[in-house]
């Protein structure tokens, strides 16, 4: 299973499980009905069909129930999303610059790196920029993704809670070596991070 390295990731996974549950229920329901009807009302067993033109009550039920369910799901998604869309004010800012086909991260003190080093349990805001075409900043373990484009000001944020090293992809097709455009996020302790940041 995929790592859950942020609190946000846990929320997303919970939502995912709820929705998968609803979806599996409906899929099983429809499939069971299809198979049951196909067997029970097969031509051999049931040579005479009965015309049923419709049933207003049923129509209303199966309009209203899905409506309520999808509105509920919408709300789940929106409430998680709005958290992701509003970075905390105190977040530490890192500039991420995408170019064909590599990432470059610039820290507030001017230090640059190809690998994204971040301290654990700290709000990090990533400001995204691109020097050429569209790219997308994607860390599956954090469940975040945001496109990096020239001439636009996109950003995203996260708070990594687990130490470790995670993959960072470019998720938007960007040409020849798009698939090679990945690097690592290293979540390290605060001390280690400060040492690294101030080294050299």
């Amino acid at each position, binding site marked *: 299973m*995929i790592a859950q390295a942020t609190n946000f990731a846990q929320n997303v996974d919970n939502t995912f499980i709820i929705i998968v549950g609803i979806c599996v229920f409906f899929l099983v329901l429809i499939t069971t009905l299809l198979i049951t009807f196909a067997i029970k009302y097969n031509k051999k067993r049931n040579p005479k069909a009965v015309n049923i033109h419709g049933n207003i009550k049923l129509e209303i039920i199966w309009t209203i129930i899905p409506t309520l369910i999808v509105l509920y799901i919408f709300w789940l998604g929106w409430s998680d999303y709005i958290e992701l869309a509003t970075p905390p004010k105190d977040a530490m800012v890192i500039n991420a610059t995408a170019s064909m086909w590599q990432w470059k991260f610039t820290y507030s003190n001017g230090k640059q790196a190809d690998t994204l080093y971040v301290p654990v349990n700290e709000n990090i805001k990533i400001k995204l920029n691109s020097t050429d*075409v569209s790219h997308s900043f994607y860390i599956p373990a954090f469940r975040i993704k945001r496109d990096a484009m020239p001439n636009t000001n996109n950003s995203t944020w996260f708070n990594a809670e687990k130490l470790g090293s995670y993959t960072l992809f470019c998720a938007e097709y960007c040409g020849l070596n798009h698939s090679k455009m990945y690097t690592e996020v290293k979540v390290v302790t605060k001390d280690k991070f400060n040492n690294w940041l101030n080294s050299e």
Partner: protein
Amino acid sequence: MADNSIAISSKGHESYIDHKGKHSGLLGWIFSTDHKRIAILYLVAISSWFLIAVLLGFLIRLELLTPGETIVGAQTYNAFFTLHGIIMVFLFVIPAIPAIFGNFFLPIMLGAKDVAFPRLNLFSWYLYIIGGIFVIIAIFLPGGAPDSGWTFYIPYSIRTSTNMIFTLSAAFILGFSSIVTGLNFIVTIHRMRAPGMSWFRMPLFPWALYATGWIQVLVTPIIGITLLLIIVERVFRVGLFDPSLGGDPVLYQHLFWIYSHPAVYIMAVPAMGVITEIITVYSHKTIFGYKAIAFSSLAIALFGSLVWGHHMFSAGMSDTANFIFSLLTFLVAIPSAIKVFNWTATLYKGSIDLEPPMLYGLAFIFLFTIGGLTGIMLGTLSLDIHLTDTTFVVGHFHYVIFGTTGFAFIGGLYHWFPKMFGRTYNKKLAKISFWILLVGFNILYFPMFVMGWLGMPRRSYDYLPEYQSYHVISTIGSWILILALIIIVYTFIKALRSGERTHEMNYCGGETLEWKVETPPTHENFDEIPVITGGPYDYKQNELESEVE
């Protein structure tokens, strides 16, 4: 339709295939304005493109069998998936059902002799062919095959040195062809219905085509102008979208998806129409909730045109836009759900004949349900952020597009093949290939959901070893699917060449007008235009027998 006393056909008339017009031989086909002949022209052209695109898809899967280079380099792979997308979308899925079955059966189902503008109809086929030729030119011109992905995202599509201009022109011309077909169908439905056929006595396949026609007419020009602007931008360096000239790449995405999302409904709604016909015919009973299905087609067309933004949740739209587009997206789920429930309810107390078309009909409902439910996951904002641009999306739209349009296309072809050609096919082979196809399909596309959830980006030539097992399963699935398609193609070609001849008018017990004309239909379909006195799916014999009971 219930009135069988009208002599719609008189035996012994030559069919449209044998009809002698102004020209003979091949010219009699490519200059014919007969809607049925045009449908056959489309069938030949579209099927050929389909097979080419399938081959490309097969090669893509083969390349992904192992990380790194398996059979081709990255540039070739990028061209493969770009062409696979362009050909499948613009040359197969969008035209397939309207241009083939719509052209062939819409006038017949309405009780008309032809579409409203027969010459325009032929013209649209020529546009299709010219569009196809442009794609071929784009592949073989020295600059190299296009590698921008079928979405032509700015700025990449301006920067790449490959043959974008021909590719974009191809899409532009094909869009025009699609508009002409849609326009023709709308007018045909308004003006050519047989006497007595009110709107609610019209079969549901025409209803679906009507809804589709409106989407085609209203949204296709927007992609037309957008693609034209990329050409202008490439040739004259006019500042429109290019960020280096101040343009906004997100605005390009908006304009692209204003068309391309409704395009999904141009693909799916006619397929739903085909499936509705199949379900009722092989259940031998009337459709459950006729009006609900008719209106849900319109509702899907309407809402479907308003949800394009859900392709761009991670692109940096405002939160307001994300909120609105996510909410509207969920509203599309409702008419889709209504359709699924109505189809399922139609089976209840039917007399179900598991002929090959019906198998495709049932599989359609199953696959569409999976496609729709995964669509709900993608419409959910927080999940979409994680899942977009991964193979989850690839799996989702293959379930939705192959699972609906593809299955409806093959199913519809089985359903109407004897009517169109006057020959029968090998049903056993058709059933065997169906099951292989269904198994292969799921093995091919289901792992994409899992991979996508685990973070595998789409359009990637290379991947990390941790994803390999899923890729291997998926690729094996593609082999099974290809095997099924080979059997299917063999079945049809064999049926065409040496299938048993049949002139049975109503070989499946249908009630709509195409079952009351000759097999194959005559040049002008009807000797005398029928007068309609009842609904399209009355199945009178059911009611008579139940009264006797």
